[in-house]
């Protein structure tokens, strides 16, 4: 089983939010009204955490992009009553929108608050409906969704590699956020492939994972000289 992992180099990240925008477009994520977003209903598969550290005048601001962590021991799939979220054969935590009953138990169980819920029927900006990504299904009101590590792209590159009768190359499967990062701060690849860049980065002295002590084995790594 491959171990697809994402590495964020926070020393390179400028916090511009291009990953969030790319993700929205790539995955047909619905737009919500500003008032709704204010009430905590914004739909982000790729979210941005803003944290302050220290007191004035030595305040440090931390911007931290946050996708789904695709845990190897996911707390969300354990509680799903209908197997609408599960760890699939590619090692990704997947969602089945047409099976989800909308109980939101997985959202309550996720320690990283990675999942979002379709409180209303999805809505898009005018004109956006003509340029949906045809590879990603649209979600209906009442179901949970979240970052898929752009699993539809994996299907595509797998297919290409199969036709060419070769193994996947490192860097061939890239989620939209990694591809669009202007600072090249997002790396993506297979941890099982010992030659891959993410494997090397995951062994860097700068690496850390969020709440590693919970034992859920997240597959998203952060690189930073600063600690915490």
């Amino acid at each position, binding site marked *: 089983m491959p171990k697809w992992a994402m590495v964020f180099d926070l020393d390179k990240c400028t916090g511009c939010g291009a990953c969030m925008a790319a993700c929205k477009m790539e995955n047909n994520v619905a737009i919500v009204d500003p008032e709704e977003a204010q009430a905590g209903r914004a739909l982000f598969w790729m979210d941005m955490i803003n944290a302050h550290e220290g007191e004035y005048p030595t305040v440090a601001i931390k911007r931290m992009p946050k996708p789904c962590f695709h845990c190897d021991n996911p707390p969300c799939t354990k509680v799903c009553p209908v197997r609408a979220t599960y760890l699939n054969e590619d090692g990704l935590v997947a969602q089945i929108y047409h099976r989800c009953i909308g*109980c939101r138990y997985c959202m309550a169980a996720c320690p990283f608050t990675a999942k979002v819920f379709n409180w209303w029927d999805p809505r898009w900006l005018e004109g956006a409906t003509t340029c949906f990504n045809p590879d990603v299904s649209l979600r209906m009101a009442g179901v949970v969704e979240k970052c898929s590590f752009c699993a539809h792209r994996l299907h595509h590159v797998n297919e290409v590699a199969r036709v060419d009768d070769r193994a996947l190359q490192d860097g061939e499967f890239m989620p939209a956020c990694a591809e669009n990062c202007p600072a090249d701060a997002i790396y993506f690849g297979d941890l099982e492939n010992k030659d891959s860049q993410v494997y090397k980065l995951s062994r860097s002295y700068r690496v850390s994972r969020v709440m590693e002590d919970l034992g859920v084995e997240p597959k998203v790594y952060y690189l930073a000289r600063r600690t915490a």
Partner: protein
Amino acid sequence: MDKSKILDSERDAPLFRPIYETGKGYYATGGVFLAIYLWSLYMYYTQVRSGLGVTGMNQPVTWGFYIVNFVFFIGISHAGTLISAILRLSKAEWRRPITRMAEVITAIVLAIGGLHPIIDLGRPDRMLSLLESGRLQSPLLWDVTSITAYFTASTVYLYLPMIPDIARIRDRGGKLKWLYTFMAWGWQGTEHQKRVLNRAINILMVMVIPIAVSVHTVISYIFSMTLQPGWHSTIFGPYFVAGAIFSGIAALLIVMIIFRKVFHFEDYLKQIHFQYLGTLLLIMSIVWFYFTFSEYLTGVFGGEPHEMNTILYKFTGPFAIFFWGMVFCNFVIPVTILSFRKLKTITGVLIASIAVVIGMWLERFIIVVPSLANPRMHLPLGIYIPTLVEWAMFAGGLSVFALGFMVFAKFFPLISIWEIEEGREHGIKEVEERIHSYLPGRELSSLKGEG
């Protein structure tokens, strides 16, 4: 013999009266509750039409009133069957006028509470997937299992002891004879039938206790099985069960006091019943405090940052008023009222019970919402303000409770008539014998007799 029996049944005539006589007040109250119920149905319709967006829930507060009320109502349902089973099992003679009402509470409230997770679903149309392709590994499925088991057991446990009373109504003739004939199941009161009925009740009451305990334990598991601070706690199982019995007794007392007043049951529900149940409420209040204290002390003492965030949020955050209100309603008020004989009047018990029901609702709220509003990640704190739809569903739930009781009262006696009679005919003698058997001397003589 026959004549005395008829006279005997006439002695309990006040218990039949609500079935045959309906006043204007009944229709007025029923109309009000029906209106509230229909309003809540309409509100649910709007929710189904446009999605859960009509509620106040959001990310990260993904659960709100519906789950709070689910836990609350299921807690109330422990009033009945569990308390009635424990009282029957411990041969408490004063149980006789109480058990029926307790069991009715369970049946009605369990139906209301059990529906709440479905109201909470984003896709109620896919509800049947729970049965078709449910994962038994999910705590939610444990809930479905134990709640349906409890509902089945408690409705049977309500129905069986009603059979002799239904037969009495059948024999009196009058309205709906076919219904009572059908439901009485050919009851003639023969020795054999009595033996079978008693046996069935005995088996059920023993069975129903572990089921009832399992129900609220499993509901607590929904929370404690996750890794969230404030939820991930081993004490939750017994804490929830104790809280359920606590709120259940309070609800039972309120119902008893209301029906005593409305249907003039003063002769049946006496001061002593409220005294005894009041004492039980006092004990449960202290037990509740013990659990709450242990739960928060371990959290505060350990001082794990995420846990502390949640605890401080409860103590001093925007929900602090609910937290301290809970302590006041669940501990300060009932303990003050019920500890002193002077205050432990029926009015006093009523005030304490209302306080406890409110306090236990606040407890459920304090358990569900603040943990969600305080995610482990450095996210902005969640906000949750319930909307009109959620209030409507709450009001609807309460009015279904009232309506259920009102409808039940029009068809069946609210106090078990045959059990009162049994108390008169056999209970007194039995208790006397039992007390003799507790005392020294008696055993020796019986041993001698055997020897």
